């Protein structure tokens, strides 16, 4: 193939960066070989572009003008106060913390872990000691995302590898903080694994934040979620990556029999975000509820792409995503639900709604149902609308000033998604964080 000559500046820079840092990346020979193979895959594929169906509204090849240098030797000079400032309301949540700064585990900020049945290991350590940590990569659900995942494999430096033993219920949430810091933007590549054994229960918060003063960074993060039979996981991702930052996230979830996976994603104040979720039901009677709220302003671009694979009978999936788009912001929602042959009695519902605050904002939505079984209940819907003038008049007729009425309507619109978070304190925290950013969105509008 004569592809090399057509590569963009960013694609070439990524390949060159790999040559430069490969020797410093964690892992033994097997990992080094996997990395090398992955960068080869990336070199062949290049960045995803609009001619690839799943990326038609998020053309990374044209959006990523340059590739930042990988953060391999970041030094951490932070105070706990700076961490808490970045966490905003999440700082007040009583949680076990695992902190990563610029892609490296920061043990000084990580809570001492002596909880029976809970094992947390930094990925860098796992890569040094285990033969291979990349065993999720063969998953067939990843179609369309090969290049992004290949980059993740090639450059992954750290992450949280978590295992909760059979029947253990975590007493408080686990907060995984991935902070970007410093005046020089860098490429951060993370890989996490959250494995809950049979009947285990946990709440995990995955927060990707730019600390005050941080330059725009680039993140490629992959979280591999594995739920055993009857396990129950509440997984909340909070992406506040920074105005000009780019953030590529892939979640791979495999769901065991009768497990419950409740996931939520809040995305705001981030330049370019792609949230991919591949969820596969592997055992009967499991439930997936994934929802999210995205707030875009200026020229921000936020893409949520879900593939939910009902591979076995009698599972239930629910998806509700709500976005508020101001200025020239661009929101994308792609939701694919697959029901495999003979996977009867499946029930999938999907809804994506955007509130458009500006005539220049854009929302693209593509629901996709691929159903190969006949006894199923699946439905989807999508809307993009402006604020309802009738509602606004009703509220004003009660004496509520127009700005306050608008703010309340927008808040309540997003609130319907945030209400899906069951943990009350967590719901309140995210609600406040969203509200603060909504004020920024509405203030800018005429």
């Amino acid at each position: 193939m004569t592809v090399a000559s057509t590569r963009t500046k960013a694609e070439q820079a990524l390949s060159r960066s790999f040559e430069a840092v490969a020797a410093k990346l964690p892992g033994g020979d097997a990992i080094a070989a996997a990395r090398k193979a992955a960068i080869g895959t990336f070199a062949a594929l290049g960045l995803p572009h609009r001619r690839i169906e799943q990326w038609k509204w998020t053309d990374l090849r044209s959006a990523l003008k340059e590739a930042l240098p990988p953060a391999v030797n970041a030094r951490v000079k932070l105070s706990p106060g700076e961490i808490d400032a970045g966490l905003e309301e999440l700082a007040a949540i009583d949680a076990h913390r695992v902190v990563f700064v610029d892609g490296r585990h920061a043990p000084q900020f990580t809570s001492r872990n002596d909880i029976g049945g809970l094992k947390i290991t930094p990925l860098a350590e796992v890569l040094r000691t285990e033969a291979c940590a990349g065993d999720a990569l063969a998953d067939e659900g990843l179609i369309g995302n090969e290049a992004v995942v290949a980059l993740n494999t090639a450059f992954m430096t750290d992450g949280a590898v978590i295992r909760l033993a059979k029947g253990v219920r975590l007493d408080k949430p686990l907060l995984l903080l991935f902070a970007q810091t410093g005046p020089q933007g860098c490429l951060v590549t993370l890989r996490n694994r959250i494995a809950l054994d049979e009947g285990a229960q946990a709440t995990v918060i995955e927060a990707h934040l730019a600390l005050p003063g941080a330059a725009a960074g680039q993140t490629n993060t992959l979280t591999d979620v594995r739920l055993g039979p009857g396990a129950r996981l509440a997984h909340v991702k909070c992406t506040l990556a920074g105005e000009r930052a780019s953030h590529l996230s892939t979640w791979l979830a495999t769901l065991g029999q009768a497990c419950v996976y409740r996931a939520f994603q809040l995305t705001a104040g981030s330049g370019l975000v792609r949230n991919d979720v591949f969820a596969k039901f592997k055992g009967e009677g499991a439930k997936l509820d994934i929802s999210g709220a995205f707030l875009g302003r200026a020229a921000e671009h936020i893409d949520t792409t879900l593939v939910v694979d009902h591979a076995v009978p009698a599972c239930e999936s629910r998806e509700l995503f709500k976005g508020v788009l101001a200025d020239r912001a661009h929101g994308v929602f792609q939701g694919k639900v697959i029901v495999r042959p003979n996977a009867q009695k499946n029930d999938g519902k999907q809804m994506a709604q955007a509130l458009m605050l500006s005539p220049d904002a854009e929302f693209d939505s593509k629901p996709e149902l691929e159903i190969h079984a006949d006894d199923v209940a699946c439905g989807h819907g999508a809307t993009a609308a402006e604020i309802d003038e009738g509602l606004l008049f009703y509220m004003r007729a009660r004496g509520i000033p127009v700005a306050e009425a608008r703010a309340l309507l927008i808040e309540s619109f997003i609130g319907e998604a945030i209400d899906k978070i069951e943990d009350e304190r967590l719901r309140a925290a995210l609600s406040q964080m969203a509200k603060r950013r909504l004020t920024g969105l509405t203030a800018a509008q005429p």
Partner: protein
Amino acid sequence: MLEIRNLRVKLAEEDKLILSGISLEVPKGQVHAIMGPNGSGKSTLAYVLAGREGYEVVDGEVLWNGEDLLAMEPDERAVKGVFLAFQYPMEIPGVATMTFLRTALNAVRRRRGQTELTTPEFMKRVREEAVGLAIADEILKRPLNVGFSGGEKKRMEILQMTVLAPSLCVLDETDSGLDIDAVRIVSAGVNRLRSPDRAMLVITHYQRLLNYIVPDKVHVMADGKIRKTGGKELALELEKSGYAEFRSEALARSLASG
């Protein structure tokens, strides 16, 4: 006092007048009823008083306590004491009824130069009033009007009216879609608000509501005009004779166009 003088109104994007010269005075302490056939312009009058967009006032004026009501934004009118009980109350998903009530009350109080109520004061007040309107506590926690029955929505309008304590109450077809028990509850709620400091305009198609909310005056409206004004007995006459004598113009027009 509410003074409406020669009010002529059309839809913003059409030429035809919907209100073609309404003149009306409702002094404080009085309840006036406006009755009329469908399409007579009753609801338009209610919306114009509340300040809904989409209408154009071609001529005339509306004064409330001597101030030009038409020059005010809808929320300013509410601050000045105007309240419209909607024929079709809006559903607001995601906003709990209590939150909505508190936001509205505090906005109005703040802008009237009164102190905002504390949460316990507010809750106590709303709960007391809710009991009188047979509104269950559980409903106050639900998003405003979402999934409420027709009767619940109308009772909620009266609860809002009671909590906001306006000085000019405009009730647009508050009895429509209500069974007789609900009409009694709603009417009792309205009657509790009758006061020497408050003017009320009750818009209704049927006489039934006026058995419970007994008006000081009844105006018959048709073709965008007040065609007849009388005492409460006028409503009873209409109950017998119907709107036939007021319908001639509209009927003639519809026959001509149909």
